[in-house]
């Protein structure tokens, strides 16, 4: 139904997944996608044809991970659950499609995930990450987590904002199958380079860059932005590659985290909120 963008296969012998299997798998999947769906792509000139970049789409449907890579002119990698490697059906195919398995249990999982992503970028490849961390269930664009921005800063790689529409109609939440012959629009925005947003060693840069990224995604996707994280608190960080950067083990002080976000390295503490005469959830001073 749509013309497949020019695609140049990029060998990556140092990353998981067989190059040979990858070549055939991607060719087959991409051809199928463009045959069964009308994938309308704009802004493809914003995706660099060489060198590292982070592909940062909004996240509405499971099939985002199919359509966004299929719109790219290059291979792209992302982090996936280590459990896929235990299943014979996925253990070869998923890595060939660009999934890098990471064991996300245990205290060092977040660091490992980010180190893996950094390895992809440092190798000059594309890495895809959902800044929202998980799918948005209310169709709004949610507050971005800072992992993508921190990776961009660490690896000196540009962030490519991506806003898409239509994937949630193709595969609504809870559905296993994808409805064929639908239209999906994928818009790539201009690259955001960390150095354009402040001093690279300023720790405030992570949030600044993330908000700029979300602003661009909102423009590209047409979604309304809400300044809260997507998904339930307890289910945050379930998507590949979006865990927060863990504090270094020898940090003399570290902010405490609640049990739901604890990666097992710190004792959770949640401060109680002050009593509020006007509402039970916010201090009076903060409502004015």
């Amino acid at each position, binding site marked *: 139904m749509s013309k497949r963008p020019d695609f140049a296969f990029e060998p990556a012998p140092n990353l998981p997944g067989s190059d040979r299997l990858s070549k055939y798998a991607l060719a087959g999947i991409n051809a199928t996608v463009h045959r069964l769906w009308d994938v309308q792509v704009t802004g493809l000139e914003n995706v660099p044809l060489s060198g590292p970049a982070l592909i940062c789409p909004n996240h509405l449907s499971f099939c985002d991970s199919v359509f966004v890579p299929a719109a790219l002119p290059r291979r792209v990698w992302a982090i996936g659950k280590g459990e896929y490697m235990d299943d014979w059906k996925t253990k070869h195919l998923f890595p060939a499609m660009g999934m890098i398995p990471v064991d996300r249990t245990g205290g060092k999982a977040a660091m490992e995930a980010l180190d893996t992503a950094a390895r992809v970028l440092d190798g000059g490849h594309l890495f895809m990450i959902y800044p929202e961390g998980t799918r948005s269930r209310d169709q709004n664009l949610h507050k971005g987590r800072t992992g993508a921005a921190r990776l961009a800063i660490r690896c000196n790689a540009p962030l490519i904002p991506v806003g898409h529409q239509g994937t949630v109609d193709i595969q609504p939440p809870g559905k296993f199958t994808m409805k064929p012959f639908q239209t999906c629009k994928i818009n790539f925005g201009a690259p955001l380079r960390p150095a354009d947003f402040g001093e690279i060693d300023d*720790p405030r840069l992570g949030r600044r860059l993330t908000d700029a990224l979300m*602003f661009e995604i909102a423009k590209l996707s047409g979604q309304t932005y809400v300044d809260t994280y997507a998904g339930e608190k307890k289910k945050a960080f379930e998507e590949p590659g979006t865990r*927060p950067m863990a504090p270094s083990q020898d940090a003399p*002080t570290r902010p405490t985290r609640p049990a739901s976000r604890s990666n097992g390295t710190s004792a959770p*503490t*949640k401060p109680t909120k*002050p009593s509020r005469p006007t509402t039970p959830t916010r201090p009076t*001073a903060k409502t004015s």
Partner: protein
Amino acid sequence: MNLARIIDQHPADDLALVDGAEEVTYGQLRERVDAMRTLLANRSVKPGDHVVLACGNEIHFVVAMLGVFGVGAVAAPLNPYSPIKELVRKAEPMEPTLVVVGDVASWMLERPDDVGMPMLDMSQIVDAGEAPPAVVSCEPSDPAVLLSTSGVSGVPKIAVLSHGNLAWVQEALTNCGDQSLQRDDVSLATLPVAHVLGLNVAVLATLRVGGKVVLQRRFDVDESLRLISEHQVTMLTGAPPMWQRWAESDAPADSMASVRFARSGAAALQGPVFEAMRERFGVEVREGYGLTETSSVVSTGRGLEVRQTSVGKPLPGLEVVLVDDDGEPVDFGDVGEIVVRGPGVFQGYLNDPDGTASILTEDGWLWTGDVGLFDDDGFLYLVDRVKDVIIVSGFNVYPAEVETALMAHPDVRGAVVVGTAHGKTGETVVAHISGAVDETELRQFAEEHLSRYKCPTEYHFVDELPVAPTGKPVRRELRS
């Protein structure tokens, strides 16, 4: 315990205070404080009474305060340079038993009707030869000081700090590695002593270790440099406008050679000032963070490597958590409101349970209203005030970031940014600018340095911007 006892253990011949030509040893200070206790007892000042100290940075202030502590009363320092009506307006809610008047406020003695409260003239203090009353024993939670503040809430309030609150911070400053306060330190007290930083860090903490406090009644850049050099000051605490004046002075490069710890507080220090201090005087100014409600210090760069724009690390023993709007701790490395719990957190606001409950929980968490973040090594950075955040199309805009970006334009002398209601985006960014700069050029400059939604949509050009003496922009005066 009683904070009055912090001077008890030091050698009688060691210098404690210098105020112009007058010098006072610890022995002499103890005698004067004894006499002060006698005088207060004779004026029927009892434990728990409030005593206003209308004194400047002068020896009388220290004597009066330690005397007040000694009888178990509560000292309430006020800025003696305030107009009489403002001073009285601040004093009245404290319901003072007595107003102690020092040299710089002696004019008050001639206007008893305007003051309307009993006064004690410090210049009349003499040793009556009577045996002084014993120092009253206090609990750590007993109030020691009342301080006027508009810090967290933006509305003037009176913070109650206990003996334990103040003492804990003083002790913590003696445990900061090679920049710990110690007996041979000399501190220049040029910040007003009615400000918690001047009171607890520059004066009380230095006296606790037996150091020397050089009092400067009012900040004057040349005089302060002379005092630093003459008295070989080692501990220098100032607000950003002071650092700017020092950085711009034409004093010799070795004028601050004796300074081993330089600290800026009360507002953000501008990068060029930091650089100038380092280049001109070889002094690396470390920033710190604290509030009146935390007895002055939450975090400090004391004893740590210098990280420009960081306010150091939290004092050991303080719990500092960054939380989102729902009170959930934020991701590591992300921004959130700074919430603090620990022994330095104050007792509450005087006669204001609702005001207290709005920022302080029963289990001791203080919601500071400041937004910050930690870096990977645990250094804290400030971003802005929660209530100053402008929300444009759902996105947070921190005015300080926009102000810093605009100030980078060579023709901009000052910038204060506020939000105003906007029908389409909720709020929009409005910039108030001082300096001879073309609006079109500045708009273009902003677009090159800021995300689109952060760019001001309105510019107002003014001669002077509202800035507090500490260097903080007073944004509330510009909100429409």
